[in-house]
C-alpha cells in the first residue's frame, strides 16, 4: 500500500506524519503527531470531496464517548483538505471477530452493542445517518467501542437519495430499502442488527457468492435466527425486518430491549417460525446465566507490534542459544568437538525459529490442534534436513552408495556395502525431529497468554520425548539438548501477559 506521504513529512502545518494506516475511496488516513505531542489521525480527503467534507463538517462538533472525535478540518499548501481526528490505537471489530469465528461471548457482545447503539443514536439525534455501519468502522480500544468513519455520513434529508453516486454502505450490512433509494436512519438500525447477529454468531446472516446474491437475500430471504440465543431471536428479527416501518423506531429503543434482555426473566421463548413478526420486544425475555464479571476485551497487538515482537524474539532466541551452547561447551570440559558445538547451536536456533514464527502467525486464533501438529511435524522434518546438512551429508556428494556403484559397477561392489548406512541415517535424522515436533504442542509455549511466564513442565516434556525418540535417532544427546533448550528459550523470548482470572466456562475465551 503506497501512501502519498512518508514518515516524517509535514504536509499540514503543526503535524508530523508517522505512518499511513489506511486507505479507501475517500482518501488516505495517517497516524501523525502534533507539535505539542498529541497523537492524531489525519485524513487526506480525496475523491468525492464535497460530500465527504460536508459530512465531516456536520460531525465536527459532536461529542460522544463512543464516537471517534473529529478535531478540525484544514487545508494544506497544495489545497488538499485534511480532517484531524482522534487516533485509535486499537483494532477494528472485524479483526476481533475474525479471531472468534464462533462469535463473542454474549455478555461482551451485548456490552459492545449497547455502546455502538448509543453512539449511533447520538448521531441520529443530531440528524445524521451513518450509512456505513460495519465492523470495519467500529474500533475497540482498551475495551472501549468507538464508532468511526464518517466519510459517508449525511444529513437526513427527506428520504430521497442525493445526486452523489457513491454507493451507500457495504453489501453485507446494506438495508433492503437502499436499493430503492428511499431510506432514512432505519438503515443504521438494520446494519446494527446485522452487526449484533455477527457478534453473537460469528457470521453475517446473509452471505453469498456475489454482491448480487447477497443483496437479493437482503431483499427476500428471512435471516436464520436459529443460531441466536433465545433472548436475541426476536430482537434481531425485528431489527432485520425487511420493512423499515417494522423495525425499532430508534436505536435507543433497541438498546433498551437488549439491556432488558440481560435483566428480565423470559419464561416463554418463541421459536423463530412461531414468533409474530416484530412483536418480540413486548415479550418477556429470559435472563441469561449470571456471570461474575463482564470480560474486558484486551487489545491485540497491531501487525506492526507483532513484527517488532517477532524480530525481537527471533534475535533474542539466537543470542540465548549462543549463551546456552557456550555454557554447555564449558561443562563439556573439552570433550566436545567444535563441530558438535556448532551443530548444537544452529539446530537450537533453527528449532526456536520454527516454533516462534508459526506461533506468531497463528497468534491467538483458535485453530485445529491436529493440523498444527502436522505443520510442526513438517517443520521438524526440515530441522532434520538441516541437521543432516550440517553433518556434511549430501545425496550428490561422496558418501552415498549410488555414486560408487555408478563409478565402479563390478570390481568394487564391496565399497557399496560399506556405505549402506547412509539412507537409514538420513531417515533417522528426519523422523527424530518430525516426531519430536509432532508430539508436543510447541506453539503453546509462545502464546501471549500462557499460564506461566516460564514453566519447567514443557522443558521436561521435551526432554522426555527427546530421550524416548532415541529409538529412532543414533545421536541422541544432541537432539535431546536441542529440544529441551528450545522449550526453555521459546518461553523466555516470547511475550507474556497475565491471563485473566478464571470465569465461567461460557466466557472463558481469549478476547481481542
Amino acid at each position: 500500500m503506497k501512501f502519498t506521504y512518508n514518515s516524517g513529512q509535514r504536509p499540514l502545518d503543526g503535524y508530523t506524519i508517522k505512518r499511513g494506516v489506511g486507505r479507501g475511496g475517500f482518501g488516505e488516513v495517517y497516524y501523525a503527531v502534533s507539535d505539542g505531542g498529541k497523537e492524531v489521525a489525519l485524513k487526506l480527503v480525496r475523491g468525492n470531496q464535497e460530500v465527504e467534507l460536508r459530512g465531516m463538517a456536520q460531525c465536527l462538533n459532536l461529542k460522544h464517548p463512543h464516537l471517534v472525535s473529529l478535531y478540525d478540518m484544514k487545508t494544506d499548501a497544495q489545497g488538499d483538505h485534511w480532517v484531524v481526528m482522534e487516533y485509535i490505537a486499537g483494532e477494528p471489530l472485524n479483526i476481533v471477530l475474525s479471531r472468534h469465528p464462533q462469535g463473542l461471548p454474549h455478555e461482551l457482545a451485548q456490552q459492545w452493542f449497547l455502546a455502538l447503539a448509543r453512539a449511533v443514536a447520538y448521531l441520529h439525534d443530531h440528524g445524521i445517518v451513518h450509512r456505513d455501519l460495519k465492523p470495519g468502522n467500529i474500533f475497540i480500544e482498551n475495551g472501549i467501542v468507538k464508532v468511526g468513519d464518517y466519510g459517508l455520513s449525511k444529513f437526513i434529508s427527506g428520504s430521497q437519495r442525493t445526486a452523489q453516486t457513491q454507493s451507500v454502505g457495504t453489501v453485507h450490512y446494506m438495508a433492503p430499502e437502499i436499493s430503492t433509494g428511499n431510506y432514512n436512519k432505519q438503515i443504521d438500525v438494520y446494519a446494527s442488527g446485522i452487526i449484533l447477529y455477527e457478534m453473537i454468531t460469528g457470521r453475517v446472516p446473509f452471505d453469498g457468492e456475489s454482491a448480487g446474491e447477497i443483496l437479493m437475500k437482503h431483499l427476500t430471504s428471512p435471516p436464520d435466527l436459529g443460531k441466536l440465543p433465545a433472548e436475541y431471536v426476536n430482537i434481531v428479527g425485528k431489527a432485520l425486518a425487511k420493512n423499515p416501518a417494522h423495525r425499532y423506531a430508534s436505536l435507543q429503543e433497541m438498546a433498551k430491549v437488549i439491556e432488558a434482555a440481560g435483566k428480565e426473566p423470559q419464561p416463554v421463548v418463541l421459536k423463530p417460525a412461531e414468533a409474530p413478526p416484530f412483536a418480540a420486544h413486548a415479550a418477556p425475555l429470559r435472563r441469561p446465566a449470571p456471570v461474575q464479571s463482564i470480560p474486558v476485551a484486551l487489545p491485540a497487538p497491531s501487525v506492526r507490534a507483532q513484527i517488532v515482537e517477532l524480530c525481537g524474539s527471533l534475535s533474542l532466541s539466537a543470542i540465548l542459544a549462543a549463551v546456552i551452547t557456550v555454557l554447555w561447551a564449558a561443562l563439556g570440559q573439552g570433550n566436545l568437538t567444535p563441530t558438535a558445538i556448532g551443530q548444537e547451536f544452529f539446530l537450537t536456533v533453527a528449532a526456536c525459529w520454527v516454533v516462534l514464527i508459526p506461533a506468531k502467525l497463528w497468534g491467538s486464533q483458535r485453530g485445529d490442534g491436529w493440523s498444527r501438529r502436522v505443520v510442526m511435524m513438517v517443520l521438524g522434518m526440515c530441522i532434520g534436513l538441516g541437521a543432516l546438512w550440517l553433518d556434511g551429508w549430501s545425496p550428490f556428494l561422496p558418501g552415498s552408495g549410488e555414486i560408487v556403484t555408478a563409478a565402479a559397477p563390478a570390481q568394487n561392489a564391496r565399497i557399496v556395502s560399506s556405505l549402506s548406512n547412509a539412507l537409514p541415517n538420513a531417515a533417522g535424522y528426519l523422523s527424530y525431529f518430525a516426531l519430536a515436533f509432532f508430539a508436543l504442542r510447541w506453539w503453546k509455549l509462545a502464546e501471549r497468554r500462557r499460564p506461566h511466564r516460564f514453566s519447567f513442565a514443557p522443558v521436561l516434556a521435551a526432554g522426555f520425548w527427546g530421550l524416548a525418540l532415541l529409538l529412532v535417532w543414533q545421536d541422541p544427546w544432541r537432539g535431546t539438548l536441542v529440544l529441551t533448550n528450545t522449550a526453555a528459550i521459546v518461553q523466555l523470548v516470547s511475550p507474556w501477559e497475565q491471563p485473566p482470572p478464571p470465569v465461567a466456562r461460557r466466557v472463558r475465551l481469549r478476547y481481542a
Partner: protein
Amino acid sequence: MRPTQLTSLVLVGLLVSATSALAGRPSFRPPAPVRTGKSQVLQSWVVQGFGVEEKDAKKFALEEAKKQLLKYLNDQGIVLKWDPPLSYIESLAKHFEPAEDKEVPVAGHVKQLEIQVLFESKDLRYMLEKEGELRGQDRMMLLGKFLAGLVAFLMAVAGYFRLEEATKGYYTLWLRLGMLGFIAAVGVGIWLVA
C-alpha cells in the same frame, strides 16, 4: 475422530513405519560407523620410496601411497576435500620392507624403502567421516555468517520500530540512517571475516 486427527495419525504412522523399514534394525542399537571386525580389504598397493636418509625415503613412499589412494578414490567417483595427512597414510601401511642402500645414477647413494598399504572399508568410512566433518564445518561457517547478518537485521528492525514508537516519529530519518548504518557495519564485519 476428526478428519485432521485421523490424517495426522496416519501421517505419523507412515513416518514411523517408513523409518523402521529404512533403518531396519532394532532400537537402542549403538551407532556403527566403524566395525573393524567386519572390515574388508578394498585395495592394496606396494609403493617404493627413495631418500638420502631413511626418513626421507619413508616420507617419499607415504606421499606416493597417498597419491595412489586418492587416485583410486577418484576412480570410484569419490573426490575428497579432506587432505589425509601422512600420519594417517602411515596408519594404513601394514608392512615396511627395511631400507636398503642403492646407487642411483644422478643422485648417487640413496636409501630405498618399500611399503605395502592396505585400504579397508573401515578406512573408507573414516575418510568419509572426515570429509563430512570438513564439509559440515564449511557449511557452518557459511550459515554462521548468514545467521549473524540475519540476526543483525532483525535486531535493527525491532530496534528501529521500538525507538520510532518511543520518539513518536520525530527522529525517523535519523533512526532509519542508524538502522542502515548498523546493518551495513555488520555486513562489512561479516565480509571482513570472510
